[in-house]
């Protein structure tokens, strides 16, 4: 079970969090149709460091971005997103 260092709550078990998407897949409603298809419906899907959007759903409910190595699960550079960022 990964340990995710929440910027507000400190290190917590990843069962308290939910993965939402890679940051590249964040699509605003006002994007162009091509950008939408590119961001939402295709992925770089790297084997290695990947910038991701998670939420501390069963903790402080805040959103965070972090870099996680998809092979070793090493987690670095955790930052709050949006409100209170």
């Amino acid at each position, binding site marked *: 079970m990964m*340990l995710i260092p929440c910027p507000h709550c400190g290190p917590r078990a990843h069962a308290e969090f939910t993965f939402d998407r890679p940051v590249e897949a964040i699509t605003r*409603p006002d*994007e162009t*149709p091509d950008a939408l298809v590119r961001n939402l419906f295709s992925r770089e899907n790297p084997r290695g460091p990947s910038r991701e959007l998670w939420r501390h759903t069963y903790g402080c409910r*805040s*959103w965070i971005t972090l870099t996680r190595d998809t092979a070793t*699960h090493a987690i670095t550079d955790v930052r709050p*997103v949006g*409100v209170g*960022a």
Partner: protein
Amino acid sequence: MSGGQRLSTGGLIDRSQTLRFRFDGRDYTGHPGDTLASALLAGGVRVFGRSFKYHRTRGLLAAGVEEPSALVGAGEGGRFEPNTRATDLFLYDGLVAESQNRWPSLALDLGAVNQLIAPFIPAGFYYKTFLGPPSLWKLYEHVIRAAAGLGRPPHLPDPDRYERRAAFCDVLVVGAGPAGLSAALAAARSGARVALVDLDSQLGGSLLGDPAQIDGQPSKDWIAGVEAELRGLAVRILTRTTAIGYYDHDMVHLAERVTEPGALPGPDGIAQRMWRMRAGRVILAQGAIERPLPFEDNDRPGVMLSGAVRTYLERFGVAAGQRIVLATSSDDAYRTAIRLCDAGVRVEALLDGRPADGIDPALLRRARDRCPVETGVAPVRAVGPARGVTGLETRAAGGNVTYMADVVAVSGGLTPSVHLHMQAGGSLDWDEGQGIFTPKDPRQGQVSVGACAGRFRLAEALADAWRAGLVAAEATGHRPVADAPPRSEIWPFADQASAFVPAPGVNPKKVFVDPQNDVTLGDLDLAWREGYRSVEHMKRYTTLGMATDQGKTSNLMGLARLAQNEGRPAPQVGLTTFRPPFTPTTLGLWAGEDAGFHVTPLRRTPLYDLHAALDPPWQAVGYWRRPRAYLRSGETLATAALREARMVRTTVGITDVSTLGKFEVSGPDAAALLERVCATSVSKLAVGRGRYTFMLREDGLVNDDGTVWRLGEDRFLLTSSTGGADRMAGLISYVRNVLYPDLRVGAANVQEHYAAIAVAGPRARAVIAAVVEGMVPPRHMSLDRGVVAGVPVLVIAASYSGERAFEVYAPSHQAAAVWTALSDAAQAQDGGLYGLEALEILRVEKGHVETGGEIDGRTSAHDLRLEKMLNPRGGYMGQLAQQRRAFADPDRLQFVGLESLGGPIPEGSMLVERPGFAVQGHVTAAGLRVLEEGFIGLALLKGGRARLGDELLAWSPTRTASARVRVCEPHFHDPAGERYRD
């Protein structure tokens, strides 16, 4: 005379107490501190079980968890545990155990006939035969399955409980042998929060079977002293606890056996406990596992590991046999020979495969003082019947010599236990001389000390472990103490040579590498000849190392054979993957508290107890439970539901809708946020008014629907379906926090703040007027606030049933009084309660789409006839994605109504021209006209919007039911909505 016997003195057992137990129907005795293995060995038992394929007799090989052969069924009834290692069960009074995988009995097992056809059933034979159609394989399979499997399957539910517990520490030490104790002491003295776990029943590890002098005192006393000091330093000490899995970021799962297999638990009823231990640093001190030697019939009962023979002697006071011969390629066996002789047990000879000049002369002298020692001698064949070995044939320069013995103690050297290091993602070094892999790069916070790091000399292990303890304490923020590490007497002899290659002339087909799965060197050679040359192919083709011991004593010998066949060094050939659990772990323990009824949480609405008192049939909706109907005596579910539906159409009914999603959005940008989340316009809504809305997913398909209400200039209430509530909470939070963090708005999830009670029917207005003080019943799609029985309520005039209806929102902890008041008023109007079934009948007749029904995650706004409500200004989630070409395909499945031209329409059935014709759609909901005759339904039909009037067959082959139907508008009841006007 042959077989084990209890010596009059010695062993760490409590001879003052006698424990009685049964094995295969016979009574035996033992003492506290015995394992089932040591007690049976003391009782002269030699055959413990039968092997998987050839059903050859199996004795006791080891003393620890690496035991591959002595597997028994332990306990009775719901506590019966098959495949239990006799070495991993500490004796208790009244234990009942049985041998397994034999019919009719252990002594006479018909399965042994497989040995006659052994030449025709080598590894992988089943891939080459039993060919033909699957129907033929089914017949063969029936026989194969009956023969396969080891223990008897349990068939009763488990009466005991399993607890799961989180725990945290700075330093976790796995293994409480000399190295583990030293590391734990160093870390604890330095002030770290330490946990020390060991799978044995007491601390000491290898010292229990191999006592030594440490810090000038016998190891027994040293251990007791260290344990006392550790407890004084608040170290959490867990015995009978196995570190079974090393997971991400130094989380280690520890399986604690609170009770022995089959034993009764204490008052708390807990049989085992799983610890989720999060550690800062992990010090692995798991020790090493001894390797057997390759010779013919080396699987005979009586062939045992040399360290095990020593442990049975020193720890359990049991001589494994009357006359013992030792064969070794390591110094370790010398200690066994010396201790046996000192205890008066007859040692026929100590046979060392290494040349004389490869052995320390001082060690040879010590052994030769006590028993004959020969060097350069390799074992060739175990002599003796299936019942048990009677001697060992060996080859030496002078020729073959056979030594008579009832126990052949073997040692091919020690293999460091690198399982957890590898599970953590570590890598390995290879030492060709000793034939061992040792831990290299850790990758996580683990370090290996002592024998599991390849450090077999006690003095060296103690010092190395002490340093590791200090480093771990410092790494977790504590100042390391300056004390000196524990010192032990110097016993320098710890050399070993790998002895994987059998003596010349030995028949590989008779050399057992994996005794439980009956895998021989011959099988490994066959696999290699046939091209299964990756270590993983060899393992899977021969099933080497796939038994319950997972190859703890066999994997390396198998790997060495492959390397020999390949002509490549072992590290290039590689090992198979180390996977959790380290030792097999009870499924009930994995399930923890969630077994049985608590497999998932049960969410109760605030009015649950009021419903439960009427004992309604429940409908699971996610983790919620909602009443389906309130049956009166003599009613079936169907008749009750129809009565309730008619009641709502004619008088008034109330129902609990508390599970709906509810969000209170407030602030200057509240409308702006809602117009991102909802696909309909919201900002033009007048205060006090509400309207239907729906939400799209980012891929443009409909996600959920609900209603939105303007409570104030900057305050809205948004509702969504029960099924969609959690999805909507996530979507709103994503839009608010990630996409538009700068909006001045707050979005509160008030799903559980409000209980919600729907009041529907022609007399609903009268009920509201009678019960709610301080307001006039709001007109349709309007809201107002009032008081019911002293409780402040919000009343919104929304309808799902198609009747004039209201939803009364009250704070959850005050809702019971509101329900009772409304219920009494409804009964006064000849109305009453209605449940989900009636609600479904009503909404189908009205033609409302439902999340999970028509909104099936594959339908668009246009498919569901909702496109006209889309917000013309756009900017809502999913807006762009719904412009993709396929959304305009004419043959999309579109929402329609169905009128039956005959009987009831089977719900879920396929819409076809005629049976067997192409499927053109399916029935999403089936119902009936509540106050008139006729069966109706809702459906999704290809190009449905343009096919009003078409006639089709609603066909259900699985229920052999069908109905001819005509496509129509999906609104059967009051399409114009006149009933909403007062």
